[in-house]
């Protein structure tokens, strides 16, 4: 056997018919039909929880369907494990990369494959073949680099190569653009076109409409586990797709009333800080946000955003520099004192830092104020006041929960974020730090969060919006700062910013000239 899986036949067609998959309490896939032909990009579009990933995990053999059948090249198949799917020429690149970070690229690729040398690994051979594959598809990567040393974009290349190496001709890409810069997305699309040109087929899972429209031949939309329809990309548009996804009309550009910015409410001056690992994370960051203004902080994840948010919130001491809130130097203040002064903080890791998961909705609402009247008197919690407060917030923020006593962990991601928003915004903040406030939320919840932030802006609050989603930043921000390796690369008025220019700054390409 010269190269493993070299005999894998090309996938000419895959047909999934009447797929049903039930999990306790939910039907993740409800009689879904889906098919892919050789040489096409078929996008699978839908909100979170619509059943896209479940359907593709069934096709990849990770889940077994409760009903329905799968045909590959016209023949019915059953996949008991990914190995069966791989043997049929199907490969999957998961949203959360399936890489062993401590191993090298070649080792990750060779994992689970028989070696041509029997008892001993044949990593040199694997590396040589990887280089050849990389050249063929425009996916250059160093086979001997350790995975943890690679950037996210490079890691994705390794994932794709891993799948191609196994002879896959149908590639399932699960939300592949979620972690990429605009330039990296372009690279990925180039690779996809190249693969399709060589007779491969691609299933592209996404909830980003413009990407889906630009890369796919056909689009299938799922909603609540059911198939809404399949359409040729050329024959549809964003509005129609969004309506299919959400089940109602969607406005893409939220209404932004003109607001005259007030005085500077939040100022960060020459702040330096270290990451958890002790490496420099912020290197002389200065930034000011005025009342009635949203400043967007764009950047690829891990360039100091988290640390900056934590420095402002009072959760990470800066090694140098100052933080001013409402004109007062709060650098030495603890987090609760800053909150009491008027700072709201919507943390990036909402499950970890935003709520206490086993606590009830009501308890999470009073996390900041549980020792103050009216929620506590003489050190005793006042259930009546807490309940009344909770019911008011649940109504005002349209939180879907069985009741105030329900543990937050039983709510959906969107509703958990609403709990955080309700708690923070109900305190009438003057400064808001919102870190990745819509990450992982579906269109409906995203719309809601955006509307809330704009409402706060109209009310005169200073908003620092930290996001990796350029569309979000472009839609909401008045000014846009770009952070790269702990430095602010540039601050642009929103009118002068476009994805190309921001993308270059995000990639660390020096200050845009002119």
């Amino acid at each position, binding site marked *: 056997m010269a190269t493993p899986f070299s005999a894998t036949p090309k996938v000419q067609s895959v047909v999934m018919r009447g797929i049903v998959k039930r999990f306790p309490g939910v039907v993740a896939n409800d009689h879904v039909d889906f098919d892919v032909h050789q040489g096409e990009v078929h996008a699978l579009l839908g909100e979170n929880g619509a059943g896209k990933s479940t359907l593709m995990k069934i096709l990849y053999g*990770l889940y077994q369907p409760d009903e329905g059948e799968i045909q590959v090249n016209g023949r019915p198949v059953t996949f008991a*494990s*990914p*190995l069966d799917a*791989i043997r049929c020429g199907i490969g*999957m690149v*998961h949203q*959360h*990369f*399936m*890489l*062993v*970070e*401590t*191993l090298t690229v070649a*080792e*990750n690729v*060779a*994992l*689970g*494959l*028989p*070696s041509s040398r029997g*008892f*001993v*690994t044949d990593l040199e051979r694997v590396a040589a073949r990887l280089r050849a594959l990389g050249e063929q598809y425009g996916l250059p990567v160093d086979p001997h680099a350790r995975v943890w040393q690679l950037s996210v974009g490079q890691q994705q290349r390794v994932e794709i190569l*891993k799948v191609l190496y196994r002879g896959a001709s149908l590639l399932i890409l699960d939300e592949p653009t979620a972690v990429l810069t605009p330039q990296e997305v372009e690279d990925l699309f180039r690779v996809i076109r190249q693969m399709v040109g060589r007779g491969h087929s691609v299933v592209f899972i996404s909830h980003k409409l413009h990407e889906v429209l630009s890369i796919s031949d056909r689009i299938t939309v799922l909603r609540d586990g059911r198939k809404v329809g399949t359409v040729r990309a050329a024959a549809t548009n964003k509005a129609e797709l969004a309506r299919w996804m959400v089940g109602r009309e969607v406005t893409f550009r939220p209404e932004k009333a003109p607001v005259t910015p007030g005085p500077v409410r939040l100022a960060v001056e020459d702040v330096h800080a270290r990451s958890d690992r002790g490496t420099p994370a912020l290197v002389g960051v200065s930034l000011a946000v005025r009342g009635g203004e949203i400043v967007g902080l764009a950047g690829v994840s891990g360039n100091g955003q988290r640390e900056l948010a934590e420095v402002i919130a009072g959760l990470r001491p800066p090694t140098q520099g100052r933080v001013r809130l409402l004109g007062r130097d709060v650098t030495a203040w603890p987090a609760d004192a800053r909150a009491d002064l008027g700072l709201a903080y919507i943390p990036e890791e909402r499950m970890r830092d935003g709520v206490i998961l086993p606590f009830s909705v009501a308890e999470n609402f009073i996390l900041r104020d549980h020792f103050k009247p009216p929620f506590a008197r003489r050190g005793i919690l006042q259930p009546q006041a807490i309940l009344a407060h909770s019911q008011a917030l649940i109504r005002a923020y349209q939180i879907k929960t069985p009741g105030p006593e329900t543990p937050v962990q039983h709510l959906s991601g969107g509703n958990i974020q609403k709990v955080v928003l309700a708690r923070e915004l109900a305190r009438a903040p003057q400064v808001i730090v919102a870190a990745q406030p819509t990450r992982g939320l579906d269109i409906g919840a995203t719309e809601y969060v955006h509307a809330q932030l704009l409402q706060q802006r109209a009310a005169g609050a200073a908003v620092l919006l930290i996001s990796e989603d350029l569309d979000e930043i472009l839609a909401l921000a008045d000014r846009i700062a770009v952070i790269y390796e702990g430095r602010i690369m540039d601050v642009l008025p929103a009118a002068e910013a476009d994805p190309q220019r921001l993308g270059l700054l995000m990639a660390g390409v020096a200050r845009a000239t002119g």
Partner: protein
Amino acid sequence: MGDWGHILLGVLASGIRLATPYLYAGIGETLGQRSGVLNLGVEGQMLLGAFAAFYVTYRTGNVLGGLLAAALVGLLMGLAMAFVSVNLQAEQGISGIGFYLFGLGLSDLLFQKLLGTVDSVRGVPDAVIPGLSDLPVLGELLFRHNWMVYGAYALVPLAWFVLNKTPWGLMIKAAGENPHAADSLGVSVARVRYATVTLGGVLSAIGGASLSVGLLKIFQQNMTSGLGFIAVALVYFGGWRPVGVLLGALLFSLVNALQLWVQVLGLPIPADFAVMAPYVLTIVVLVIVVQRARPPAALARPFERE
């Protein structure tokens, strides 16, 4: 060569010898931990292995049969630990302590029911290598140990080779670092962990046997007295690498040999302090070393497909 030279040689030779049980148990535990399973039951496996080897050797006079019995006992204990940690997905620290107590109690019970008194066997013979064993200094230092000592040292390069040069090593490391990644490529995490934990059980039991029929030629209640736990600590000390475990085992057993000689020679150091020394050393070194080594990311985490 003066008296001190002889003493030094004695310390070094017994240090090399005393490392044997640590190596068997530590290498076995290394493989298990690299695949993501923390087995704290090593001590119990060693005790049962020590008893099985001793009893069969005592009754039949066949030391190979004794070793086989120890391996079988270790296999069963390993399979049980694998079942509990892989199939039942139990908390590994607690279930490991359960296995320890089981091994301690059962070996004690069997000892009282089947033997009753401490007796000795001839055990595993020392190597006699023509030429080498008679060498001055080196002969005593390296070439007059019992055969199980050589087996233990041979395990180190073997384990290194398996971990770093074979497809199985890749699977073991992947199961311990990112079992989801292994699973997504069709590698059965359960099978990998069963293999390493069962092999670890066999090696621990052989390690126990190396004490009862190899080094001491006797069996007594709780004769490992914490040795299995030290072996687990040595895995951390060694940074989850076979060579690291070897260095740790040598360091530890050399200090142990030294304290034995301190007592034998009647040096003016209270015996209790001397006995304490290796353990104090373990704690100190662990505190220093473990800060820089990084354990397998999925260590002690049961694997479940979402």
